């Protein structure tokens, strides 16, 4: 991967993301939720969601399982439709978009990558370009470019199959696949959740740099505040189908909302773990 490592570090060490956030505030709105409710039978999964996501933001949907964060994500590429209210993408309600066109404009990464086991790495990455009937040479070029971008050597990996890759490598392929057709918007559903700690932290940093570099907008679902701090320009804390806090990471730290405080309590432990992981990683590289 050819990300500027220094950039990543700066971004991570000095969480002055307020500056980035105000920049985003002025950019156009890519995704907007207006009074969105989602129910399954009598159960209310989402309760009056109002949310604007600007170009260039990495918005974190944070919360415990069952809080509605994944549901919120799936409403964006119309994997599900709201019971009431509307979701707008680039100013147009998802229900007025051609679903197929809408989805092909939005990258999607999910846990365990969701790669097709019977497709090679190259075939997986070239999936959307293939559906869009790109010509073979252009597809090949783009695939190599994408693999390069996520830090996988195309010569070495293009013809392998998902089961021959490590979890981290699979996740990189998943990101490459999502980016292949050059979408402006990326949706990620706990993509790094199943990875071991070292791989996870590396990928998180690389991913943050990558998205910023490419100027993409991303919506990222996680239950890990640490991950939210590393990646997010804004954090949406959700609880029982509602957004209870929607603010910058900086302001999140200051919040006295009990749930936010509870999350902040966990981070001390995580930060400790991470130092240890870093130490371990260094000692491994030294060998």
């Amino acid at each position, binding site marked *: 991967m050819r990300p500027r490592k220094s950039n990543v570090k700066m971004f991570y060490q000095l969480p002055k993301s307020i500056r980035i956030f105000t920049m985003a505030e002025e950019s156009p709105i890519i995704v907007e939720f207006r009074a969105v409710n989602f129910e399954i039978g009598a159960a209310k999964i989402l309760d009056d969601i109002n949310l604007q996501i600007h170009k260039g933001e990495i918005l974190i949907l944070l919360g415990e399982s069952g809080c509605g964060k994944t549901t919120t994500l799936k409403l964006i590429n119309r994997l599900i439709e709201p019971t009431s209210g509307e979701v707008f993408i680039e100013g147009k309600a998802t229900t007025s978009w051609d679903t197929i066109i809408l989805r092909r404009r939005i990258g*999607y990464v999910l*846990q365990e990558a*969701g790669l097709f086991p019977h497709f*090679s790495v190259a075939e997986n990455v070239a999936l*959307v370009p293939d559906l869009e009937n790109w010509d073979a040479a252009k597809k090949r070029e783009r695939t190599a470019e994408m693999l390069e971008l996520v830090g996988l050597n195309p010569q070495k990996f293009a013809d392998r199959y998902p089961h021959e890759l490590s979890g981290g490598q699979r996740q990189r392929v998943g990101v490459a696949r999502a980016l292949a057709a050059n979408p402006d918007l990326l949706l990620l559903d706990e993509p790094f959740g199943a990875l071991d700690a070292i791989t996870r932290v590396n990928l998180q940093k690389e991913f943050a740099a990558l998205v910023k570099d490419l100027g993409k907008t991303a919506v990222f679902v996680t239950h890990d505040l640490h991950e939210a701090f590393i990646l997010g320009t804004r954090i949406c804390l959700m609880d029982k189908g509602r957004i209870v806090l929607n603010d910058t990471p900086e302001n999140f730290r200051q919040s006295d909302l009990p749930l936010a405080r509870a999350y902040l309590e966990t981070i001390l432990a995580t930060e400790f773990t991470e130092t240890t992981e870093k130490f371990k990683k260094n000692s491994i590289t030294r060998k």
Partner: protein
Amino acid sequence: MNFFEFLQQNWLELFALTREHLFLVFVSTAFAVLIGVPLGILLTRRESLQTPILGTANILQTVPSLALFGLLIPLPFIGGIGAKTAIIALALYSFLPVIRNAVTGIVGVDPKIKEAATAMGMTDGQILKMVELPLALPVILTGVRVAVVIAVGVATIAAAVGAGGLGTYIFRGLRQNDNNLLLAGAISSAVLALVADFAVGQIEKIYALDVRRNKTAQRKRIFILVSAAVLILTIFTLPFVLNFKSEISNPAIANQTIRVGSKDFTESIILAEILAQSLERCGVAVERQFELGGNLAHNALLAGQIDVYPEYTGTAFTAILKRQPLTDAAEVYRQTRREYAERFDLDLSPPLGFSNDFAILVRGEVARKNNLKTVSEAVPLSKNWQTGFGQDFMSRADGYAGFSRAYNFNFAKQPREMDLSLTYRALAAGQIDLIAGNSTDGLIAALDLFQLVDDKKYFPPYQAVFIARGDKSETLRETFAKLENAISTDEMRRLNYAVDGEKLAPKVVAAQWLK
């Protein structure tokens, strides 16, 4: 004759039957797959249909195979006799595993992968073609494998509806008490099942994920499989291409072909063969449609699928015309002939000279010990006897009920209802004590059985005749005249024994008699 000599003499026929068997299995499985897989896909799209359709397939599979064949026979278009009916029945049997595995395979695809596919903007058709079917293929092929093995087994029953196949040997073996035939039929179909199972297993392997990823290995396996299939087809087809060339090449007489049928027992086959060969000697082309079970021959005649078959006046009179039994042979012949002409436009040939009446049989040793001659003399001894009768005798108007009433039999035990040909064997083995056989049966002498005289003249006469379609009687008249009164009861018994006892082919026995 030992088994290997038998194989040596009959390998050509065995190959023909195997080829028929393969054909039935292949076509029916192809049907089941062509209909079953799309149906399975539909069920994954419309879940509300799953219960009714899978339920129906389930019920179909629980219907005993012989019953399913029987149920199909009277149906228009899909019914009747021959390969068509058999293929439909086999396909119905094969549906369940095919549909169920298609559903299981597709539903079983990892939901994460389906979610990814949907989120990438694949259409439903693309998801099906590019993701679900390829990933479900191993499971679908397992279903096909099960279907093929079931079809190989059930296809042996197809012989009962005149579809041929290895079941022909099994049924014939049971009837003629011939272990060589039984073994040849049973072993061949078992081997066929194993080979088919193995072959589909190989196809399954080609499409297993790890082989699919390795294109060279996949190509190698496909090559091996295709070569094996071609080799097998050649082995089973070549002898026929060489053999049958001469037979087909005479279009001049092909339009006046006579299709000769027979029932599924030795005597009927011999008589049909005698007729067929007599016709062939007069230059008439003949098509043989032998060994039709139950009342199939009559139905096939009415449906125009055969033109002529041997029948007995008593059977025609009571079982088909549903009349009360009469004892006067000439009267039965006269009435049957008239009614057949009126009701069915069918023609009775002159009597062939013998009649095949019901013969009440006991073991020879029992008859000698008790000095039995007539049925009435057996009545006092019979209290604790176990009787055994063919299905036909148990159900017909002139059968068991009337018989035991007429003679005042009072059997303590329920009669065993079993396959007619097996009753001879069971009687000789001492497992049952009294049966109703056929008076011309060669096994009577061969197994040392004794026929008790019908002293109360209960059984109607069963004169042998041919029954032909009205529109063919011109062609047949001359041959019928030649065969009038030509075969005596003793002669018929000898002919039957030549087949059942000496294991000669009906074709050979008929040819010898015609000389």
